[in-house]
């Protein structure tokens, strides 16, 4: 025991400045490399390391594969067969760059890159915990998508999310951005203590800020000084103080122990016509209500009311029952009141449909709250008071910054912050290349894995900051590199030398994320709707998954319109029961900040892709698409289907196999039309156009089901 404590003490005593991640990155010189392989700076660093490890880069990927890869990485959707044909005719370096530039401008870029950010932001559409009711903050999700699409500099992206509301003359969009920290879970079950909720939410904001922008686990210091990293318990609560001025986020319903999720919201901007109409209705409403009030006043002065009414009127407090009696009396006696009240109701209904939607935002209390060190991390045990401060081991907090969230935001994206740029480029690198330069993406502290390519990491971090914190610039650099363009083939020699591909002697081969698996299959099937923005969508999932303890449970009503086929980033995220097929592909519950999703390979994934109603209708639609878009014989159809699903032609053995299966099945279904109709007739989301040969469609359903299930289909390679 003594030894252990001695070791801990030694770690704590070690000068923290020596840990590489706490030193400001400097742009390193490019290694001198005698080779024409590098296409940009990334490759010079990578090749230098490969040579040191006695490894060679792999040859460039086939054009079709590269095209598919860069589409999936930048917009999360595969290239269409037409785009593929055009590129295959002219797969030049110039044509590739043009495609990259086009994809970076595509609005689907923001949707694809919002997904990992929303994991960090623990964005969800429900409160979590008991009841797990829905909340509206999808405008924040849309803000993230738009910010990425517009190429908002990352430093501004951070400032607006942490403190958009505190910016001078904050715009609506800047306030919506603060939804980033209105995402924590909130328990509203009967009997909760509101202060505990509030404390937990602030804790979540501090911890998430540490993970997302500093790559540092702060939460240890909630209860004691951090054992490994230079964060004292006092410093934890000094950071806490920046976030401690927000109002309570649960509201008591009545006098009982029942609570509701609450806190600052804002109305979303609406267009002028709608606003005008709403204004008019509101004016009418005011008038109608005034009239009702006046009428009631008159009626209350009724000269000779019946006895029972008079008795009630004499009382100062009316019970529910008494109120009902009064209402009844008034309405029978004075039909004009009823008419006017109905008018109010009708107006209220109209106003409700036109009322702007709302979203959750951050807001400061006028009177700041005092912050204390909380002993043992408990909200019930305040210790010494602390002021808003940033940890002393990191860069200084400038004098001219305000001591509030805005000042903190400035501190986070200050050029002197050694962590934020490194942590950010490392996550993007990992998302594209399959592994972070620092493998422990969530932790850059002393317990982290040292970077495999420290100079490349620093070069990228400095490049990022100096190029106006441009995410698109870094993404373009990565996908333009020769490192990125390599083949992903895993040869026995490569497997023996570097199985984890730490040194990038080949491109990554990665199973897609849950959302991308679905988006990709929707695109292949031709069903995908590219409609953007708005309230969450409800694509098909089995019944009875939303059945949680708690009041007024929301219902999962499966969409029957285009919302059935929109991208995964819009799918409703209920924390207690996220979308079932996403769960099977490693989607988290979003109850807390997630930096890196696991990538498993399970039989449940196979069952999902084969049998989930959503994927079954995609398979049938894909079959229909093949028949509609290619009129030539089976070989041409198979060629088209492979290109749509995999961006390549079938290998000879594959063509032979698929053709023989197709013909066999076609013959079978021609004879057994009932079997064919049963398969086709049971699909809800896609209806075959008239005149399609049912036998052929059913046979193609088999092939489509197979193609949508291939390892290659759900893999970026």
């Amino acid at each position: 025991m003594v030894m252990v404590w001695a070791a801990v003490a030694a770690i704590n005593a070690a000068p923290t400045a020596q840990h590489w991640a706490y030193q400001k990155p400097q742009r390193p010189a490019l290694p001198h490399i005698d080779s024409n392989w590098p296409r940009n700076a990334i490759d010079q660093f990578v090749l230098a390391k490969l040579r040191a490890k006695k490894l060679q880069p792999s040859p460039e990927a086939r054009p079709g594969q590269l095209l598919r890869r860069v589409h999936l990485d930048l917009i999360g959707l595969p290239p269409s067969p037409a785009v593929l044909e055009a590129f295959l005719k002219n797969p030049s370096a110039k044509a590739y760059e043009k495609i990259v530039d086009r994809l970076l401008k595509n609005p689907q870029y923001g949707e694809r890159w919002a997904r990992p950010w929303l994991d960090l932001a623990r964005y969800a559409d429900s409160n979590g915990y008991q009841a797990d009711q829905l909340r509206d903050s999808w405008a924040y999700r849309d803000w993230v998508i738009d910010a990425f699409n517009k190429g908002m500099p990352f430093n501004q992206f951070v400032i607006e999310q942490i403190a958009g509301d505190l910016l001078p003359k904050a715009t609506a969009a800047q306030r919506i951005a603060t939804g980033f920290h209105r995402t924590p879970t909130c328990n509203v079950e009967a009997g909760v203590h509101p202060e505990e909720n509030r404390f937990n939410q602030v804790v979540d904001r501090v911890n998430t800020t540490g993970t997302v922008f500093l790559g540092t686990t702060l939460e240890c210091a909630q209860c004691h000084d951090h054992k490994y990293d230079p964060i004292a318990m006092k410093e934890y609560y000094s950071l806490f103080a920046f976030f401690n001025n927000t109002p309570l986020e649960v509201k008591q319903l009545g006098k009982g122990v029942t609570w509701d999720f609450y806190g600052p919201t804002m109305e979303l901007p609406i267009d002028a016509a709608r606003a005008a109409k709403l204004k008019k209705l509101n004016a009418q409403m005011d008038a109608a209500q005034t009239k009702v009030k006046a009428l009631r006043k008159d009626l209350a002065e009724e000269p000779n009311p019946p006895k029972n009414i008079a008795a009630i009127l004499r009382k100062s407090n009316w019970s529910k029952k008494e109120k009902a009696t009064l209402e009844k009396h008034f309405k029978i006696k004075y039909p004009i009141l009823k008419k006017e009240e109905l008018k109010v109701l009708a107006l209220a209904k109209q106003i409700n449909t036109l009322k702007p939607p709302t979203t959750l935002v951050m807001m400061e209390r006028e009177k700041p709250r005092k912050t204390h060190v909380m002993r043992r991390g408990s909200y019930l045990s305040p210790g010494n008071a602390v002021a808003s401060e940033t940890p002393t081991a990191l860069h200084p907090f400038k004098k001219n910054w305000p001591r509030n969230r805005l000042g903190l935001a400035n501190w986070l994206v200050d050029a002197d912050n050694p962590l934020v740029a490194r942590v950010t480029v490392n996550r993007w690198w990992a998302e594209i290349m399959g592994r972070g330069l620092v493998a422990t993406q969530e932790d850059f502290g002393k317990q982290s894995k040292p970077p495999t390519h420290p100079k490349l990491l620093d070069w990228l971090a400095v490049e990022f900051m100096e190029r106006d914190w441009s995410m698109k610039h870094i993404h373009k650099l990565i996908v333009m590199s020769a490192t990125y363009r390599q083949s992903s083939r895993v040869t026995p020699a490569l497997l023996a030398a570097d199985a984890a591909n730490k040194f990038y002697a080949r491109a990554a081969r990665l199973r897609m994320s849950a959302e991308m698996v679905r988006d990709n299959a929707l695109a292949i099937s031709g069903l995908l709707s590219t409609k953007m923005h708005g309230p969450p969508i409800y694509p098909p999932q089995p019944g009875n998954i939303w059945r949680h303890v708690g009041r007024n449970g929301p219902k999962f009503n499966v969409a029957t319109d285009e919302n059935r086929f929109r991208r995964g980033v819009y799918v409703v995220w209920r924390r207690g029961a996220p979308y079932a097929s996403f769960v099977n592909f490693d989607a988290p519950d979003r109850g807390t900040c997630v930096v890196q999703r696991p990538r498993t390979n399970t039989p449940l994934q196979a069952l999902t892709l084969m049998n989930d109603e959503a994927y079954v209708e995609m398979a049938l639609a894909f079959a229909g698409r093949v028949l509609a878009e290619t009129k030539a014989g089976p070989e041409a159809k198979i060629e088209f289907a492979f290109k749509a699903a995999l961006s390549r032609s079938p290998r000879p053995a594959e063509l032979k196999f698929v053709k023989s299966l197709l013909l066999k099945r076609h013959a079978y279904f021609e004879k057994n039309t009932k079997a064919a109709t049963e398969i086709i007739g049971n699909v809800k989301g896609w209806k075959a156009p008239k005149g399609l040969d049912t036998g052929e469609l059913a046979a193609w359903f088999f092939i489509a089901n197979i193609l949508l299930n291939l390892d290659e289909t759900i893999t970026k390679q």
Partner: protein
Amino acid sequence: MNPLRQYYLTETRREFLKSAGAGIGAMALASVLKGEPRAHFKPRAKHVIYIHLVGAPSQLELFDAKPELVKRNGQKCPDHMFKGKQLAFIREHPVLLGTRFKFQKHGQSGLELSEQLPQLGGVADELCLVKSLTTDHFNHAPAQLFQHTGFERFGRPGIGSWVSYGLGSENRDLPGYVVFITGNVAGAGNSLWGSGFLPTLHQGIEFRSSGEPVLFLSNPKGVSGKDRREIVDGINFLNRQSLADVGDPEIATRIAQYELAFRMQTSVPELMDTSKESKATHALYGTQPGKASFANNCLLARRLVERGVRFVQLFDQGWDHHSGVFTNIPKKAKQIDQPVAALIKDLKQRGLLDETLIVLGGEFGRTPMLQGKSNAGAGNNVGRDHHKEGFTMMLAGGGVKGGFEFGATDELGYQPARDPVHLHDLNATILHLLGLNHEQLTYKYQGRDFRLTDVAGHVIDRILA
């Protein structure tokens, strides 16, 4: 945990597979997950059946007889039970509420149980009651998370996932961690059996009692088993072409998973079909083939344990008796008494009780004070509030003493008076019985070695057989 083992089990699976040779990835992986004995020391139990009574049952009506409380029924509770205490619902100084049920001694051990649990009385000599439990939370969802994951907020793995991570599964065709639910899902939702930061491989898989037993298990209408076989053959033929060309061992794993999925389409319905169980067995549990119930889930739990599944969890909803405790407890107790007793008898006669640990209890207990107006002793609508100090959990089998009780509450059943046990201690003990040291079963995440028991937990040595 040994970093080498973590390395095997998680991110560097590929590196491990390399040494086994590409192409047999899945089998190599399976052997890591099952073959290698991975307990820290010799286990006493190989399986756990964890029965969570969602909402938290009253220990005072089921397990913890308090004659003094009955005597003082209707009196104002002593100050220390109310003043300065945080309670979920009670806001005014409450009165004491004694139980209206009788308690009886059972078996050779003379273990005392409520008259509401007569069948469990019949197996009293197998039961181990821990009667002095405390937890840190008194709201349902945080308490449920705390009980299962050792932490009151989201993000950490549940005990079943920890066990799956530590020991793997013995059955290649079934998940290592299976969940059954009667009624609605507990307030904390699916996160109770989620894998948190552990690989999702270790998450609990819900076997549903209505609709498909496992989500997406059944073929779409019109697609027969033979059709499916042809489709799986097609998928794997094409996957093998890719494997030959691309060489990624993940493809080999994928091929194996499609085969496993196909086998599950048979093995899971076969497991869920209890029609071949004997009449005597059905009579013992009070089950009918094809009829969903808590009892049926108990029978299925035995079938899973027989097949080597590591951790089975049953959730049963409806135990939150803020009111009507004396009318609701008999109803709910009747639903669990016979099947849980049957499960114990059935496991015993099959020689499985020694290696199967049964755990039963809620996320906290109930107050000895009445919640609501002071009509104790009178109306039927009286109930008890949430209580985090001094509740009971029941254990049986798998290396714990039978006919044994550990710890005791004070004379009013309010706080532990002897041998207090914290939930972390119970979790440490469950892991210990499985051969796992709770301080060594760790997973490195965000630069920290996480444990189920956080930085606490002591094995309760004196309940070990």
